């Protein structure tokens, strides 16, 4: 097996162990704890009246907007990683190249601010 994959094998083992622990925890109360099923107990939590409406309701569009902005900026952060690691070696050219990109990004950020995409109220 190649060395690169071998580096990741312990993570696979760790994942398997974590899964076993999680499911063991979940199984414990099902085996050991008392169970007294009851209609009231198994109803959806609500403050003293039967739940009405679908709980997977329409939600605020702003959450969607935050997700879109997140994709833009998080991709940009992912894009910065290789640049940041090698900047010491590639020098001023790489610095200016990235500044042009960041400049464009900042223009976009200012636009998003101006149109109110960052407002929450």
């Amino acid at each position: 097996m190649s060395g690169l994959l071998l580096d990741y094998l312990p993570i696979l083992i760790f994942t398997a162990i974590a899964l076993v622990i999680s499911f063991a925890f979940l199984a414990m109360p099902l085996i050991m704890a008392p169970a007294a099923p009851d209609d009231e107990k198994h109803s959806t939590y609500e403050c003293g009246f039967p739940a009405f409406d679908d709980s997977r309701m329409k939600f605020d569009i702003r959450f969607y907007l935050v997700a879109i902005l997140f994709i833009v900026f998080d991709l940009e952060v992912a894009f910065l990683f290789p640049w940041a690691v090698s900047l010491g070696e590639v020098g001023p050219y790489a610095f200016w190249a990235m500044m042009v990109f960041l400049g464009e990004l900042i223009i976009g950020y200012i636009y998003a601010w101006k149109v109110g995409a960052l407002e929450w109220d």
Partner: protein
Amino acid sequence: MEFLFDTATPLGWFIVKTLVILAFVVVLLVSLAFILLADRKIWAAVQMRRGPNVVGAFGLLQSFADFLKFVFKEAVIPAGVDKPIYALAPVLTLVMAFITWSVIPVAPGWVIADLNLGILYVLAISSLGVYGIILGGWASNSKYAFLGSLRSTAQMISYEISIGLVLITVLLLSGSLNISTIVEAQSGGFWNWNGIALSPLTFVMFPMMVIFFISALAETNRPPFDLPEAESELVAGYQVEYSSTFYLLFMIGEYLNIVLMCAMISLLFLGGWHAPFDFAPFTWIPPVLWLAIKICFIFFLFSMVKAIVPRYRYDQLMRLGWKIFLPLTLLAVILVAAWVTFIAGGA
């Protein structure tokens, strides 16, 4: 029996690695039990209460008693839930919280998987942790859980950007994504630590450490950013329909992430396992203990913030993330990059 533990053979390597990981998990869970207790004790002390003090001396065994209580409680699964996803969500949270720890070095060479892409791995896996919360909130079929998970997700992804940009500044300084290498670059005394170095750059890096700390609070849904579980409005947010060990998995996952953030601050900004002075009485303390001391100190700050600072309003939270931290961290990336290119590199 010898051949079973011979790391040269594939079988021996597998057995030894598995045992090491199991030992690590046990150490992690036992420390977590005491860290949970410390959290409650500090919170109590700030409010002039005694905190848990009945089980064991000074309440030292409280967390173990709590664990037993979780296990022997009925797992109430409400009628309307989407059962497979409902069960998957806490498992996902805990597994993601656990496997992030596999790249965290606790002392020179003491790391489960010494990846070259360590930092990227931490960022990627901690992003996946969001799925546990959003799936849990959706599957619960309760309005409180649904709203809580939406809020929580929006909050976590907003602060992930500032965390990512702060990580970039550290990477610029160390030129590596491997966490062990980043820590080794800070050896020699506290004046070499990224967060508090004796250099003009510290005017940028110290604020970055503070921003990382605050973003870590938001990322792990800790007070003052615990809006997803704001008791007065959403009861317990995405956890409202969870009980017994189903809830326990969420809680362990959350605290594992909190301690992970403390470890990240110690490793990236405070020199990791290095002693503050590189001579006699300080070097007698083993590296792993130095890291533990630093993690405990940062966790103490986490607890104090929880006890002292009042909860933020949601619009304030989003404004802090998008309008203050994002431009500040972006500016810091540019400043540090300029420093690395023209001053440190040119000299």
